[in-house]
């Protein structure tokens, strides 16, 4: 297992370097001058010059790239153009809210999605199944900006039970969580249902039944456990998306997470922050994929990485 982990981590390094090259040149190819955007439309030439040299933009592109790789490898992510703070500090400040939001959304999505999916599978072709299907598809296909506005209108403006803008306080978290969880919940419910049905039709389930096991044991121990494997993959991927910053949800609810930060940084062409965010997102996906592989091994004894 340790060997497997070490190999996977080593394999990730070239991927990360590739990501860094791509991000750097992508960000610098964006039209828009960070100094001009920072200083405002009315800035004079001498102000712009001062700002460019402060940002290091007066150097040649290869020189900037070399500095970027060197400092990043040394663990220094640079200084934000927009806020003049160390990028690491800016990221940490916004990472917390996103992690809290992603975890609360994935908890709601997994619990809700599994319950609904298994319920639908066990009551296949009844009204309950149909209802779950309808809810899942609504959750998947309703755009989050619409859902967000709908929730704000109902809960914050009409009934006034929850605040409009999000924050990491318990009340501020409810609406962004529900909005963000909706699509994952639908996806997980669909996967759980089909996976459960597939497994329930397998030979070993018939065998279990023939052994005389009760329906509850079969459902819990044999079917559900095996049905979880594809669901875990999906949960992993979904969590990756949630962590990469729910850009729309964070923007509408004014929730100060990484997605919100990304939008602000792109708008200001805050190169160091955009580059660092992209790198963080790439690392997140690498880590999550790794965790998913490990969890496979834990759930399914046939999978091993020895």
């Amino acid at each position, binding site marked *: 297992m340790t060997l497997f982990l070490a190999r996977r981590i080593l394999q990730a390094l070239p991927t990360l370097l590739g990501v860094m090259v791509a991000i750097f040149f992508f960000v610098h190819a964006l039209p828009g001058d960070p100094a001009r955007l920072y200083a405002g*439309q009315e800035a*004079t030439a001498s102000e712009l010059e001062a700002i460019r040299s402060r940002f290091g933009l007066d150097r040649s592109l290869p020189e900037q790239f070399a500095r970027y790789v060197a400092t990043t490898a040394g663990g220094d992510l640079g200084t934000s153009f927009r806020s003049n703070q160390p990028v690491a500090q800016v990221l940490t400040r916004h990472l917390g809210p996103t992690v809290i939001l992603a975890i609360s959304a994935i908890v709601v999505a997994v619990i809700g999605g599994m319950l609904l999916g298994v319920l639908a599978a066990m009551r296949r072709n009844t009204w309950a199944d149909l209802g779950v299907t309808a809810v899942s598809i609504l959750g998947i296909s309703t755009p989050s900006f619409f859902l967000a506005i709908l929730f704000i209108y109902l809960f914050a403006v009409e009934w006034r039970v929850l605040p409009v803008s999000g924050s990491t306080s318990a009340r501020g978290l409810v609406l962004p969580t529900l909005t963000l969880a909706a699509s994952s919940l639908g996806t997980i419910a669909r996967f759980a249902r089909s996976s459960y049905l597939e497994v329930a039709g397998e030979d070993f389930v018939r065998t279990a039944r023939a052994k005389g096991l009760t329906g509850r044991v079969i459902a819990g121990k044999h079917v559900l456990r095996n049905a979880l494997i594809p669901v875990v993959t999906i949960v992993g991927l979904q969590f990756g998306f949630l962590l990469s910053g729910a850009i729309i949800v964070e923007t509408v609810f004014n929730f100060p997470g990484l997605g919100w930060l990304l939008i602000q940084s792109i*708008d200001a062409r805050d190169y160091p922050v955009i580059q660092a965010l992209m790198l963080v997102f790439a690392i997140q996906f690498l880590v999550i994929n790794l965790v998913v592989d490990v969890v496979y091994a834990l759930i399914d004894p046939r999978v091993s990485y020895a």
Partner: protein
Amino acid sequence: MIRSSRILLSALLVAGFLLPQAFAQDEEVVVVSQALAHSSLNPAEATGLADASVIRTMFEGLVGFDADFELVPELATAWEVNEDATSIMFELREGVTFHDGTVFDAEAVKAYYDWVRDEDNAQPARGRSLLSDVETIEVLGPFELRIDLSGPNGAMIFNLALSNARIASPASVTAEGADITRNPVGTGPYRFREWLDGQKVVVEAYPGYWGGPPSADAIEFLEVTNAATRIAQLQSGEAHFIETVPTALVPQIDAAAGISTSVSESTFARIFPMNTQRPPFDDVRVRRAMNHAVDKEQLVQVAQQGLATVMDAPMPSPVFGYAPQDPYAYDPELARQLLAEAGYEDGFSFEVLTFTGDEYRTVGQVLQQMFGDVGVTMTLSPTERGALVDAIFQPLEETELQAGIVGASTPTGDADRALTVSFSRESWPPSSNNWSFYYDERVQELIEAGRATGDASVRQEIYAEAQEIIWNDAPWVFLYSPDNVAGTADSLTGVFYMPDRSLDARGASLD
């Protein structure tokens, strides 16, 4: 498993709905929801309007602007500009202390401004360029000061009223390792409490304020870029004041109980600059034709629900020196005739880049139709802000722009700035905002002359002549000046938009 998750779910729901609705608060906190992000609270550096609004509560200048953009005393009690506008005398207010306890006096002003002017300081670029005409600052007495300029500049006093010239405690900026962006120390009625990046800046009453402590105990400046979210906040009572209400939503807010909108004039302009150095717009007849082709009253109705003033001068009316001109009447027949005289009987086609966003899109579509009525075909290319800024800041040899739909503002509230930035030779892109590459020898002379005198009535006359020339040369289709539209809770007084679209929240008070 099923049972425990059910309990968890219910617990989550209960937590969400039943937690106390509002935490009991002893202090009176005014909540202002702003449309733009905060990026710096260092007055000499901050360029954003959201920052300027917060900075105004914590910092004061020698002079400032009142609600009508007239100069008023702040830390100076009196000032006098000499006749040839090369030096300004100030008498300073006594009994003022900075939030860090430093005493405010002539030495403090000199120490702070000299720090701003020091080329070795990387940060205060904007403040330094405002003060670039300052030669020396002379302390004449404990509360008496003279600023000598390197040449005549009749507009200097307006520069000193700007946000970037507000004065910070010299001790706070020179302290070892001081992060001036985030540790603002001024003399204003409010002092800094906290800044949660991306969420809010909070300021609290400064008990030692020379004018007596302010009415509210604290002001929270929230950062809420989404307009729908701001409106929901006002409706739900989460915010007392919200910035930038889309004009289409004004009736909705006015119809609701306990909240209303307020509308005031701005120093912003929506303009349609035409490249006067390149055909077809190098012909003044074509440019006048374009002005006659647009029904500006209708444009204001469609794009702004009437909440804007049609321009009748090259600058909006709150600007000092503004001189109204004879409007270009809406007359498509005359427009077609002028085009024919210029050799464009069959019209012509061209492309414009515009900002994305509802207002610009609507303006573009209305203009497209009105130009179409006189045989001119305009193609619209909505462009993301950064890309558009790149495109419009190209020098004449490289620019591909024939015309644009852009905004212009005059944050100094003075004609010198308005004319220099938009119509002087030195402001041709890429150096500044003369988008139409306009040049007129007489206008250039007048701008110089206006700078060379401190006499307000003489300046007024000079600027009136310059505006008449520009108006007749029509380098822009002069569109409109959009109003500032804010939403306010009925319980709040004392927060309002300045014409430059920053807020004055110093008088905030709740019933």
